[in-house]
């Protein structure tokens, strides 16, 4: 899914936190979003994901305005994952359930992704009792399960163990290659952006500057 942002302005009270004249996120590519703390990265992610609707300007998804079908085809993985108070299996299954997929197919898909993320031993655990790295993996698996056309990741690998990071990066790349899904990822880690991203957007004080 291609995202085009035009004349986006966002205020918190009097303070302007985003001022983007034009920005395009390329379809089928992994785009990194970097910049110092407080530059507006998370705010931009919330706006693109359709969670924050309180802004001025236009955002188009493959040329169309936000509607229910677009909501159904994109997702945002938060910096601090919120997992539901139920088992890991049910957490990952949730997006398929709200899409009305039948049970047999759901089981196949969930089992498959659990295997790929190497979290078989977490399967039956209560999700709200997991460690940080475990939670992030489950949270990413839950986002990828329904193969969104746009995947938004807000620092998904900060403060977690290297082994988990490796798995997550591998799955992000695989998702991008296999489904041609567009990815926008906020990261502080230059090495990570080199490993993953085709393009990089640099955000400072709510304004955009392109980098190589």
């Amino acid at each position: 899914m291609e995202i085009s942002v035009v004349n986006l302005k966002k205020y918190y009270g009097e303070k302007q936190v985003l001022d983007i004249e034009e920005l395009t996120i390329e379809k089928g590519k992994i785009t990194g979003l970097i910049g110092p703390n407080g530059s507006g990265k998370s705010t931009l992610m919330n706006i693109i994901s359709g969670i924050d609707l309180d802004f001025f300007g236009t955002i188009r998804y493959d040329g169309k305005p936000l509607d229910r079908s677009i909501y159904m085809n994109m997702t945002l993985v938060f910096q601090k994952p919120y997992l539901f108070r139920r088992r890991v299996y049910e957490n990952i299954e949730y997006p398929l359930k709200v899409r009305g997929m039948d049970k047999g197919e759901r089981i196949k898909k969930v089992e498959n992704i659990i295997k790929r993320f190497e979290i078989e031993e977490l399967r039956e655990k209560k999700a709200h009792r997991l460690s940080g790295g475990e939670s992030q993996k489950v949270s990413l698996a839950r986002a990828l399960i329904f193969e969104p056309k746009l995947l938004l990741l807000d620092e998904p690998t900060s403060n977690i163990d290297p082994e988990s990071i490796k798995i997550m990066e591998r799955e992000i790349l695989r998702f991008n290659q296999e489904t041609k899904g567009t990815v926008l990822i906020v990261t502080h880690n230059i090495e990570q952006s080199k490993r993953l991203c085709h393009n990089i957007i640099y955000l400072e004080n709510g304004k955009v500057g392109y980098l190589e």
Partner: protein
Amino acid sequence: MDYILEGFREALKLLISFDKEVYDIITLSLFVSTTATIIASLICIPLGIHLGLKEFKGKRAFSRILYTSMSVPSVIVGLVVAIALSRRGPLGGLNLLYTPKAMIIAQTLLVTPLILGLTYSLSKNRGKEIEKVGTSLGAGRGDIIVLTIKELKLDLLVNVVTAFSRAISEVGAVMIVGGNIKNRTRVITTTISMMNSMGDYPMAIALGLVLLLMSFVINSLIYTYSGED
């Protein structure tokens, strides 16, 4: 002083011997208050969650009115229901006054603002994050409400029990609309009140003990259950 001890002794005798009148009264109390709490919960929990999440004009004023109405005195509710259901009232044709149905209606109205207010406040404070995650995973409006209820179920349960305790321990509304008729509309609180004015303590003490015991049991259950998580 002797009559107090005597009262306790007689009270225990009534309880241990499974005195039919005492247990009928307890059963009716539980039935009326439980039914009222369930009806109010079924309506108010989804509604409260929805209103708490939704942004709308005048939400602040709405909150204030809702929170104030949470403590509406039970006699006022009883009075309003009695006026509505009396033979000369607008709903007089239903012939409901002085029946358990009227008591259920009154208690439902009594706990409705309580459950709605508690749910609304919970949803307003804790529901936003759940809504965000749900939305980002493709949940629709109905899915979000169901999801929020499931996520907050322990807190909601505490709210429901609070409402139930209010219902079962109130005397004003059930006395007015029920009339405290023997074997029909007599519940724990109205009996205690009546027995006191009759100077007949044993049954009042027995029922008082039961009421206390119920509060203890329910609340310690909730406490244990919510402590687990």
